[in-house]
């Protein structure tokens, strides 16, 4: 589904965030992206949905070179990807349900359908009673869950979650991980950048470890730390 061919990313200030990344993520996989702070995890996810462009190399999504895409194609690429952002990125002036609904509105889903699906999604993340609030009126963990609901509502073929449990208590984190596993079983590919070692260790999925912009480990069914 996604292939990285010799991808490097050097930011404008000269920081090399990724260095010659080669990676193949297959359809239906569940992949953990781990590594210390500043290793390049977020940068890697940003290349997939074209928030950033690679400095060298190619990122291929469903056979298309993401960097070479025409401008008109980008929105359609992004609609296939559900993104959970590390910094949430909620629309500050929209209510919780409007934030979630927005991901449907961009695709032109009917008002009726929206009214049906948004409460469902909010219920999945346990926020059905916060639908009418603004993001500024939520706790950190609640904001994070709004972001998760928004990423999943579209039934995207790929879910990219950047540190989705950083502000959540262990119980809520596990509930969400069950949700992720469920949608993964229904066919959604999942890439999750995380520091939650307990989750990674328990789930035994494919683990890609980054360090200083390079892949230092790519292990099927691995743990958070290198077992070797």
């Amino acid at each position, binding site marked *: 589904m996604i292939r990285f061919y010799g991808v490097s990313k050097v930011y404008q200030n000269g920081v090399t965030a990724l260095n010659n990344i080669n990676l193949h993520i297959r359809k239906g996989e569940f992949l953990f992206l781990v590594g210390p702070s500043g290793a390049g995890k977020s940068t890697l996810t940003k290349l997939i949905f074209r*928030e950033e462009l690679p400095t060298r190399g190619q990122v291929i999504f469903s056979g298309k070179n993401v960097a070479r895409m025409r401008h008109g194609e980008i*929105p359609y690429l*992004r609609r296939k990807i559900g*993104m959970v952002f590390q910094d949430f990125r909620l629309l500050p002036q929209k209510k919780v349900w409007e934030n979630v609904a927005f991901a449907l*509105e*961009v*695709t*032109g889903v009917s008002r009726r359908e929206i009214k049906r699906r948004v409460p469902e999604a909010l219920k999945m993340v346990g926020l059905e009673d916060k639908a009418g609030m603004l993001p500024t009126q939520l706790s950190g963990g609640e904001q994070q869950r709004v972001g998760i609901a928004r990423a999943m509502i579209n039934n995207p073929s790929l879910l990219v979650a950047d540190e989705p449990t950083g502000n959540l208590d262990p119980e809520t984190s596990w509930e969400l991980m069950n949700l992720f596993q469920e949608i993964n079983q229904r066919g959604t590919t999942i890439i999750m950048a995380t520091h939650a070692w307990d989750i990674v260790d328990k789930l035994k999925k494919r683990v890609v470890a980054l360090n200083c912009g390079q892949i230092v480990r790519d292990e099927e069914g691995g743990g958070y730390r290198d077992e070797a």
Partner: protein
Amino acid sequence: MRLSTIGYYFREAFSSLVRNSWLSLASVGTVTVSLLILGFSLLLVLNADRMAATLESSVEISAFLHSGVKQAQITSLEQEIKALPGVTEVRYVSKEQALTEMRQSFGQRKDILDGLDKDNPLPDAFRIKTQQAGQVPGVAAKIQTFSGVDEVRYGRGVVEKLLAVTHWIRVAGMAIMIALAAAAVFLISTTIRMSVFARRREISIMKFLGATNWFVRFPFLLEGMVLGLAGSLLAGLAVYFGYFSLARHVNETLPFIPLVTGMQYLLIMLGGLIALGLLIGALGSAISIRRFLNV
């Protein structure tokens, strides 16, 4: 475009107006104030131009006739002068009328001219008006060549001065209008750009969620149009009522000064103002948003 999307555009535009009420008010205020200034100075320029035209039309040519010209020749001369291009009015003044007029201009001291009645030294004359003051010298020169005409006079220095002044009034008026229209466009579009700027992060988030450029742009465009329309309608109403009460006031205290009150001008002007407001509002939003869409 799907119906649900069109619905979204309108809901979005209006709820954004309400949510950003402070920015909206500031934008409407700027549009109103800028177009008020523009509107009132347009009226000032319009009136100055009208005044210039009135002044120009008061310039007169006097053509004095040789003494002893026959009545028949006078009639044919009048026809000839009337036929000249640019001439709008020809009035015959006999020497007797001329003396009476002169006497009147002397007021209480008219006895000065008492001795002249028996042997009136004044000539018969034509008084001629032209369409535009600029035609006076040419017409005067033509009339000079007609037989029976002794001497042609007009306020030589005065006409040139007057033409210079009215030319300046027109050029300056045009320059003022262009400068103020540019200033209004600048002020309004700066305000709108700032209010878009304050929401640049929102715009980028929308793009990351898969919104097309038009999907993001359209509500802003609608919002800009509403802001522009509200501001220009306010300005238009204020100009309309302000100017008419002013014109009434001027008419009472300065009845001799003719202000432009023809509805055809005013309505065109107001229509132009409102169109300008709408246009800057919509285009200002659409253009301001552009540089934030590229994510």
